[in-house]
């Protein structure tokens, strides 16, 4: 049976997250020391060689992102690093575990990333409900300043970097990078038109690197041990490890770090198997903005490239397991209700579409003379929304909807 391989989570439960000395004894900031001894471009090259993909959901190559930012607008007075710690995808809590239990790890990754793109200012945008993460990150920052790991002339390298915490206030949409930048600037969380991407015009209109907590938490390992070591785990197309958060009908729901490419069945086994011995029915991969799969996917490799090939998504690493007897329509209805609540209202197709989809899902659940036609209509509407909405929120409902329809159309459309 597969075992966990803890790289990012190696210190979890072993150190006091509020003690920088504990963290340093466990190897924290070794990666930063090494990074500061080479050129920023060398750091970027190492990350590109490691082929680290962003762990927030989109899976964009992290090294490439850094390269874009580092080469953007050479005459601009300032560059920024923004940490996306607005974890809100249903079923996802990997960033919370890192922030609550090893905040120095991602703080170190943030400082290395700032050095790589030569950003002297960073913001960590944490969702407002994550009180423990906020508090521990603030402690970590304060202690890092005391040790000369933040501020002026970090460890005598001549590199300056200041980092502060910004709070979200209960908006899922602000986890989308451009919307997050709006919120960070003190505005309503409405998305921006892209392009321009943050690398070009980010926070305050200046070049900005936006990275997820887990992505940044992978950087110290890559710099300290090298890209070859990093690539020893995972698959060719998706190197490294991934933290999966497994919940629902399993015996030991929780966070599990495993090499990219383990199968869905292996993840379920790792989480103690199906609860009450019930047969597996479905998994929702990647949260609400994710895809449903059925038992035919149990032996598929969980990696960005493989799941994409199969029309599914890895997303944030959320894996929500359903057993026989759990109605798919309920889960679908819940996801659609979520989108309705979180739609910002800027794009009409999303604002009215998310509300319409909830109504339709209720009809699907409560009875409708022609459920087949209704489901087709929902897919059509969500496809139009995806094509006509500015940001990922309006583009998301089609994902769970289409996948649920393709795997569970008989259940969804049967007339009781």
């Amino acid at each position, binding site marked *: 049976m597969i075992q966990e391989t803890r790289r990012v989570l190696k210190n979890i439960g072993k150190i006091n997250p509020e003690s920088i000395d504990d963290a340093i004894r466990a190897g924290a900031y070794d990666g930063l020391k090494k990074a500061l001894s080479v050129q920023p471009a060398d750091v970027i090259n190492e990350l590109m060689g490691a082929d680290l993909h962003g762990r927030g959901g989109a899976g964009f190559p992290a090294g490439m992102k850094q390269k874009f930012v580092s080469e953007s607008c050479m005459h601009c007075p300032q560059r920024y690093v923004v940490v996306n710690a607005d974890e809100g995808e249903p079923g996802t*809590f990997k960033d919370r575990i890192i922030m609550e239990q090893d905040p120095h790890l991602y703080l170190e990754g943030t400082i290395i990333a700032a050095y790589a793109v030569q950003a002297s200012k960073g913001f960590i945008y944490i969702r407002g409900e994550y009180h423990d993460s906020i508090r521990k990150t603030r402690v970590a920052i304060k202690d890092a300043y005391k040790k000369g790991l933040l501020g002026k002339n970090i460890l005598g390298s001549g590199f300056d970097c200041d980092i502060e915490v910004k709070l979200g*206030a209960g908006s899922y949409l602000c986890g989308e990078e451009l919307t997050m930048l709006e919120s960070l600037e*003190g505005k309503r969380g409405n998305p921006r038109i892209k392009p321009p991407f943050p690398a070009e015009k980010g926070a305050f209109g200046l070049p900005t690197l936006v990275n997820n907590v887990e992505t940044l938490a992978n950087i110290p390992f890559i710099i300290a041990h090298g890209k070859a070591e990093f690539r020893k785990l995972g698959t060719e197309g998706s190197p490294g490890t991934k933290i999966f958060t497994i919940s629902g009908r399993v015996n030991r729901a929780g966070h599990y770090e495993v090499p990219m490419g383990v199968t869905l069945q292996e993840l379920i086994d790792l989480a103690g198997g199906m609860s009450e011995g019930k047969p597996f029915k479905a998994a929702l991969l990647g949260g609400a903005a994710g895809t449903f799969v059925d038992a035919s996917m149990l032996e598929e490799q969980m990696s960005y490239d493989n799941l994409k090939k199969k029309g599914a998504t890895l997303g944030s690493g959320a894996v929500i397991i359903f057993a026989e007897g759990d109605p798919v329509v309920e889960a679908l209805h819940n996801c659609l209700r979520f989108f309705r609540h979180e739609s910002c209202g800027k794009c009409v197709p999303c604002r009215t579409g998310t509300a319409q989809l909830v109504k339709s899902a209720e009809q699907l659940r409560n009875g409708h003379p022609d459920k087949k036609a209704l489901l087709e209509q929902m897919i059509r509407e969500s496809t139009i929304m995806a094509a006509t909405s500015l940001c990922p929120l309006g583009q998301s409902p089609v994902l769970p909807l289409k996948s649920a329809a393709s795997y569970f159309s008989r259940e969804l459309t049967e007339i009781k």
Partner: protein
Amino acid sequence: MTNPLQLMCTQQIIEQFAPEQHNLLNILHALQDNHPQNYLTEQALDDTARYLGLPKSSVYGVATYYTMFSLVPRGRYIVRVCTSVVCELHKAGRVIGSLENMLGITTGETTPDGMFTLELSECLGQCQDAPSVMVNEKVYNNLDDNRLAEIIHQIRGSQKTANR
């Protein structure tokens, strides 16, 4: 919980931050957390707008956009029930029903004694131990009726002691 006697005045709180727009959300959080009724008063919004040099409408727009902010008085304790797909699978609906019964209010309301406001929340990221609720800054997991009753009782008890 904050003791009203220790409350700082609005201006003192605002002035802990630099007068720059990007501090708006952090300021609103600080003001709301400082208010015993967990909300943003009109005065607080006006003072913030003046301090940041923003039109009142901008501050109002931000305060009303985000779910965590309230412009109406709420209880000392905000009970947020997670309604995510995972918690729903673990009977979050029942948690809501039980809390409504125990508190004698419906979702969105505040108990007459001003102690509790019952709200719903999107995923609180506690899916390993669903169902979950958050009471102010504290998270409670693996809930059933007994545990819920215990939590409410405990908070009521601690308040009585504090008031004595």
